[in-house]
Every structure is written in structure tokens, then in C-alpha cells.
């Protein structure tokens, strides 16, 4: 059996590895000149890597943990020791722990409402959730307004959704918000570092997972797929210069990019709509000789009402330089992405120096703009807008002729995370193997 996989990110490579183990002949076509997709490393000092894309994992990410063990990769705790900094509209403040200096009762009310709506979602079929029609046509921003929120809840909500799912509340449906939060383990698990989804990072960088998976696989770089033709005898995948023939193909790329491929026969249900929005995340890395904030009793964690850096976190590799990662998410990501490199640098550094006044000029500065990545079109994951789950959901994982689907956006478990990507790849591989067994027996 021959299989072509389109996309050499975690989903595509997980599928390719599974199928290879099962004896299939697999070729992976990758548009970029590297593997990894939305995992990507930046070498911030010789031998020291920072995650420009997906970075964090927790205990519940069992497929990722198993894959890392098989690839001889270790997890390193994110560890957050010390006080936090906040700029939430009344100057800057230092506080113990991660809790922002906002009205706790108001935030509690917000989390109560979020927990309620999250608990109603059917993660096995979000479009069948009770009241799906209303939840899918209302944006998260309108939902919040309907709660007549306290000003502190109003201030915090976009920061929270930005951090959890890189979403602008005006761009996602309530159904997608609730689904995403539940699929990832609920608001508490997704929000937590220790004991939650940000407990660990991959020691040496998450980009190593794909690099190691790729070793031993047939990967063709710089081959964006342009067309897929399914016929009675097989499937043909066309790139700019070549054609590849196979029995099946797995499309393991974000939904908007999948729709850019000319698929024949045509799809009855597209992979995305005009309401499907890119995950809005830009990551800035500020590199210092050491994690200098630790000497001042600070963890490096901050939450800020105004950008560009809506939150910062200490991502310093063990024994390496100090790496302060700034997250620019939601609507702010669009504004920041539109700035010149010089303005991006100046505004990020100025904010870091307001938050941590003892910091010198950084030794290094890197911006990773996922919105501008032609072959990702956003990060963490595509955001389903109003109507999307009802229209796209039922066909999310359904094979189309010889075409199978993978990618974190096709995983109902841990959607948007590395764990979801791996699970989707394994599911697509299993779908192909099951179908093959059916046709040959």
C-alpha cells in the first residue's frame, strides 16, 4: 500500500510513522523547507533553543508523552517560582502567585459561567450539543456582553481567551470557545502550569519531535500540494513540478490551507468557511545573559491589559541564557503583526523594561508571526467562527474518496494542541488501515 501524507507537522509525521510501522510505503510532502509545522525552534544561544511555536504539555497529553519517550526526548518543568507582575490599567504591580489584582468575585462569576457553558458541550460531536444552534451563531464577545459583566471581567476575558486559545472573542463562536476549553481538559487544566497543560516543555525544544520522527521517513521538502485527484485505481497528488501516485492520501494541514488544494471530485463540505479565523498568536523572545528576574524574586510571569506583550513567561533553558517569551494574542496580534520590525522590537523591549525595570537591552530579539506564515496561517489553531461547527463539524474526520484528514483541527480531543495533532495523525492512519482491511478481506 502506498500513502502520501501532505504536511510534515506533528499530525502528518505521526500518521506517516504509524503507517510505515504497519508496512505501508509512505511519502510525506511538505511545503516548507523544514519539517515541524507549528513546532519550530529558535537557537537563542549556541545549543540553547526556544520554542517559537507550540511549547507546553501536561500529564494528560498521553500520546505526546509516549511519543517523546519513544524518541528519547525528555520533558522539563516550566517551573514558576517567584512573584508576578501586572499592568492592568492602574500602573504596574507586583503580586505573589499568578492571580491578577482584579475583583476576584467578578472573575469567579466569569469562570462560573465559562465552566457552565463548557460542561454542556458534547466533545464527541459539538454540533449536537444541546442549544448548539444558539451557541454556534453567537460570538464569544456577544456572549460576554449578555452576562452584563463587571468591568474587571470584561478586561480579563479577552486576555484569558488569548492565552487559552489565541482567540479574539469577536471572532469565535461560543460553541467553539466552549468546545476548545472542554476538549483541552477544562478551564482549570488548560490554565494551569503545575498540574495543568503548561506543566512541562520539551527539553531542547519541541521542534525535535518532528525532526526525530522524520528521520527514516521519505520526506520531500518545498513541495506544496496543488491538486488531489481520486480515481478508481488510486489517487494522484500534484505539486508544482511532480505528480505522486498512491492508494490513499492524508491531508494533515490547517483547514484554510486544505481548501486551497484543488480536490477532485470536489468536496461536498469545505474544510473552512469565510468565518474560519486564524489562531492569532505572535511570539516574541527576548534574550538576556541569564534569567535576571529570578534575582529580583520574580517569576517572569506577567499579565498586561495593553500590548504588545499581553503576557510574559520565563522559558529559559536549563543552564542557558534568560529567555523571556512574550505572547501577543487575539486582536493585538493583528495590530502587532502590521508593525515594522523596528517598531515591533522597540515596543516589546519598552514594555519588558516597564515590567522588569532592571533589565538591560536584550542580547537577542526574535519575533515569530504565525499569522504571516504562508504554510500555517495562524497558531495555535484555526478558530471556528459563527456557524462553522454546524456546517463543518459533521464532515471533520469523514474520508472523501481516497482523501483522509489529520491536523490538530480534526481532533475532538485536545483540539489545537500538540496532543490533538498526534491523536489526529494516529486516527487518520487507523482509518486507512481499517478501510484497507475491509476492501481486501
Amino acid at each position, binding site marked *: 500500500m502506498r500513502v502520501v501524507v501532505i504536511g510534515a507537522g506533528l499530525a502528518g509525521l505521526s500518521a506517516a510513522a504509524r503507517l510505515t510501522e504497519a508496512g505501508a510505503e509512505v511519502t510525506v510532502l511538505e511545503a516548507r523547507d523544514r519539517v515541524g509545522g507549528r513546532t519550530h525552534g529558535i537557537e537563542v544561544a549556541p545549543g540553547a533553543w526556544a520554542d517559537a511555536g507550540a511549547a507546553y504539555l501536561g500529564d494528560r497529553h498521553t500520546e505526546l508523552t509516549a511519543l517523546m519517550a519513544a524518541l528519547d526526548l525528555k520533558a522539563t518543568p516550566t517551573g514558576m517560582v517567584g512573584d508576578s507582575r501586572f499592568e492592568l490599567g492602574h500602573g504596574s504591580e507586583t503580586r505573589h*502567585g*499568578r*492571580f491578577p489584582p482584579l475583583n*476576584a*468575585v*467578578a*472573575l*469567579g*462569576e466569569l*469562570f*462560573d459561567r465559562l*465552566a457552565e457553558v463548557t460542561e454542556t458541550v458534547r466533545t464527541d460531536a459539538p454540533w449536537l450539543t444541546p442549544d448548539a444552534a444558539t451557541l454556534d451563531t453567537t460570538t464569544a464577545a456577544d456572549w460576554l456582553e449578555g452576562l452584563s459583566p463587571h468591568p474587571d471581567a470584561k478586561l480579563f476575558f479577552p486576555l484569558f481567551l488569548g492565552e487559552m486559545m489565541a482567540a479574539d472573542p469577536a471572532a469565535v463562536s461560543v460553541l467553539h470557545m466552549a468546545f476548545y476549553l472542554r476538549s483541552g481538559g477544562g*478551564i*482549570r487544566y488548560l*490554565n*494551569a502550569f503545575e*498540574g495543568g497543560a503548561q506543566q512541562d516543555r520539551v527539553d531542547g525544544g519541541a521542534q525535535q519531535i518532528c525532526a526525530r520522527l522524520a528521520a527514516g521517513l521519505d520526506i520531500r521538502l518545498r513541495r506544496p500540494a496543488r491538486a488531489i485527484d481520486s480515481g478508481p485505481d488510486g489517487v494522484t497528488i500534484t505539486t508544482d513540478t511532480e505528480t505522486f501516485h498512491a492508494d490513499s492520501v492524508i491531508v494533515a494541514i490547517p483547514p484554510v490551507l486544505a481548501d486551497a488544494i484543488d480536490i477532485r471530485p470536489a468536496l461536498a463540505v469545505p474544510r473552512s468557511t469565510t468565518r474560519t479565523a486564524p489562531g492569532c498568536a505572535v511570539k516574541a523572545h527576548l534574550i538576556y545573559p541569564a534569567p535576571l528576574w529570578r534575582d529580583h524574586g520574580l517569576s517572569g510571569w506577567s499579565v498586561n491589559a495593553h500590548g504588545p506583550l499581553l503576557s510574559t513567561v520565563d522559558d529559559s533553558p536549563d543552564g542557558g541564557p534568560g529567555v523571556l517569551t512574550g505572547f501577543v494574542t487575539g486582536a493585538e496580534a493583528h495590530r502587532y503583526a502590521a508593525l515594522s520590525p523596528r517598531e515591533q522590537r522597540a515596543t516589546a523591549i519598552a514594555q519588558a523594561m516597564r515590567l522588569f525595570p532592571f533589565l538591560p537591552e536584550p542580547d537577542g530579539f526574535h519575533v515569530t508571526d504565525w499569522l504571516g506564515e504562508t504554510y500555517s496561517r495562524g497558531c495555535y489553531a484555526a478558530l471556528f467562527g459563527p456557524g462553522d461547527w454546524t456546517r463543518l463539524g459533521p464532515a471533520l474526520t469523514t474520508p472523501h474518496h481516497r482523501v483522509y484528514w489529520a491536523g490538530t483541527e480534526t481532533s475532538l480531543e485536545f483540539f489545537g494542541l500538540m496532543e490533538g495533532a498526534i491523536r489526529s495523525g494516529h486516527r487518520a492512519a487507523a482509518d486507512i488501515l481499517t478501510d484497507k482491511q475491509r476492501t481486501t478481506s
Partner: protein
Amino acid sequence: MNVDGVIAIFRRVLEIEEINADSDFFELGGDSLLATRVLSGVARGSGVELTFDDFLLSPTPGALAKRIGAGE
């Protein structure tokens, strides 16, 4: 709100049944996000709005009920 009312809120938010007047919220896995949900439950049930720092100083149902009593 009496101590039983606070215990009921702890049970709901922590999703743990074994809670008594001396159970420490943070030792049972509670974090700051869940703590705010206890405080909103207290405010709904008693009308008393406590702060996050109040809760850090009184992280058991017994101690929290005393603070609520002082505010009622």
C-alpha cells in the same frame, strides 16, 4: 453563610466529596482560578464579597465562614 454552606461550595468547585471544616483548599489542589469560583459562590450565597487575599489567609471552610460572618 455557615460552615456547611462553604463546605458545599468547596465540594462543587473542587469536585471532591471529602471536605470538612479544616480542609485546606490549596492542599486539595485548588488554585487561584478555582479560588475565585469559591468567592463568587460565597458572594451569591451570602452577599459578602471577599478578596483573594482574604481567601489566602482563610483557606479552610471553618476560617472562611468566620470571615463571612464578620462581613454579614
